[in-house]
């Protein structure tokens, strides 16, 4: 049962990646132009019918494989770079710089991350680029805080003290000992963060903050389908299931990454 879920999650994510790469070649129609009557059922226009403007829904979802997971990837990368940089600098330099950076990070954490992202969209103006940047920046404070904690914990390890005692310079300790050891945990953190970024991107685009309504990302398609719920349920079921499957798969794979729990008496 557990194995089956592992395979399913892996299969789904690989499928999304492959479809994203192949989208322009395997899509039966242009995702931006009407090809048939609006709101045709999957029977009348296989495989998934058409949307309210007569565009082929399957082609739109295929191109959405590029936009939604890709946008979340960019956001998560932005968070990774900004968040881990802030966290590392605060932890390594310490003192006054740590206090200032931590104060800024804690202040930003006082605003719920998704709301912070919405606020940034308000500032930049709606658009998919804006949404990517806003989700990336909105997730950065939490990421910075965890990175700082990881780094501070590592700095208490014996091998760091040993390196110091042996007369290693600070840059040597940071680049040879600290960063390589922190990298694993940061990557795991980034994986779990990716699920949040994906959820955030689809939520903001669902709310219509991507600006351009012709953009075939999953959140926007879900939003368009919402008005035709009873006439054309497939119009919302298809993008909604794609989003949900992706989130569940990332959650599942992220959970299997976390280190096995040690019994209390070993520590």
């Amino acid at each position, binding site marked *: 049962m557990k194995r089956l879920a592992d395979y399913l999650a892996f299969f789904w994510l690989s499928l999304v990646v492959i479809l994203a790469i192949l989208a322009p070649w395997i899509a039966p129609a242009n995702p931006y132009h009407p090809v048939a009557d609006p709101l045709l059922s999957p029977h009348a226009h296989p495989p998934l019918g058409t949307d309210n403007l007569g565009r082929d829904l399957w082609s739109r979802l295929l191109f959405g494989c590029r936009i939604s997971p890709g946008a979340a990837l960019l956001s998560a990368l932005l968070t990774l770079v900004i968040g881990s940089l802030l966290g590392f600098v605060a932890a390594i330099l310490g003192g006054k710089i740590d206090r200032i950076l931590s104060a800024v990070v804690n202040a930003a954490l006082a605003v719920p991350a998704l*709301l912070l992202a919405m606020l940034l969209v308000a500032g930049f103006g709606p658009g998919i680029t804006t949404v990517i940047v806003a989700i990336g920046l909105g997730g950065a404070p939490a990421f910075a805080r965890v990175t700082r904690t990881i780094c501070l914990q590592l700095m208490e390890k014996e091998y760091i003290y040993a390196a110091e005692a042996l007369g290693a310079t600070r840059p040597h300790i940071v680049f040879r000992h600290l960063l390589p050891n922190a990298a694993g945990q940061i990557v795991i953190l980034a994986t779990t963060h990716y699920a949040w970024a994906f959820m955030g991107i689809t*939520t903001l685009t669902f709310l219509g903050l991507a600006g351009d309504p012709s953009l075939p990302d999953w959140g926007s398609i879900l939003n368009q389908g919402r008005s035709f719920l*009873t006439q054309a349920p497939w119009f919302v079921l298809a993008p909604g299931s794609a989003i949900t499957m992706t989130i569940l798969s990332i959650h599942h794979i992220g959970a299997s990454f976390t280190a096995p729990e040690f019994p209390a008496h070993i520590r």
Partner: protein
Amino acid sequence: MVSFTDRSGNGALRTVARRLLEGLITAWAAVTVTFFALHLTAGDPLSGLFSRGLATQEQIETTRISLGLDAPLLIQYLRYLAGIFRGDLGVSLYTRRPVSQEIFAQLPSTLELAFSGLLIAISLGFVLGILSAWREHHFTGKLAALVTGMATGFPVAFTGILALYAVRTSYQHLPNGSLSPIQHLVLPALVLGFASAGGIARVVHAGLRESMRKPYMLAVQARGIQRGFRFLWHALKPSLPPAVSMSALEAAFLLSGTVVTETIFARPGLGRLLIDSILDGDYPIAMGIVAIVAIFYTLSHIFADLVSVAIDPRLRRRSQ
């Protein structure tokens, strides 16, 4: 005996006072972040009016001066802070009505939804968490764990739409009006509560499993206390504070979740107002809503801390 009650009373009071002070600082920080996040990214808030042909260049200049937008950013920030204490959050760029008025018109509706959602999240979260730990190797426990996973994985937007679809198709024969109480509060609150229940259920489940492994549980078992009582009293009690903190964390999620649920169920409220103000570029409203929500978020954390301290005496000693 007298000295004991005195000391604990003082300590509790001091804890409350300190947490309130910390909360005040956090709220100030949140407002500051809100202000600068918007002003550093937005550039000129009035240029949108001009580019859409809603105002002439002259009108914009006079508006700029009347709204105090010609002052340096730091001065505007200090004015905004001072305004908050007077309940003045600026005026809407479009309606010219005070932002506080616009917000307070929508606040009760959102609070109603958020509180019902939180209530459902907490009760559902506890039921799921307890079931999945108590009947871990049985069907019910596995089912509860599955539902927990679904609650954390399903986006609010999709569960909301599915719920709406289910109700619309099964109550098709009813006239539209008779649906309204369900569509208006029960359904959105259920959707919102379900989404937030997952996190709480996980914390409850983890807490229960951890306390079941503790030596004192063996002692309780040796005293011959029944499993149900052992479970729901001795094991559950120590896992309450983390569950309470998690509920406060979920409050943040809940508040952003109201934006989505209000959109899906066409329910008026702060969420709708926020999205509309973002799409229209009505900055003062967006800023005011985020500031208010951040203050509520801070308050929920303080409240959760105080509840935790009230439940767990060990935390009381630590915080003194």
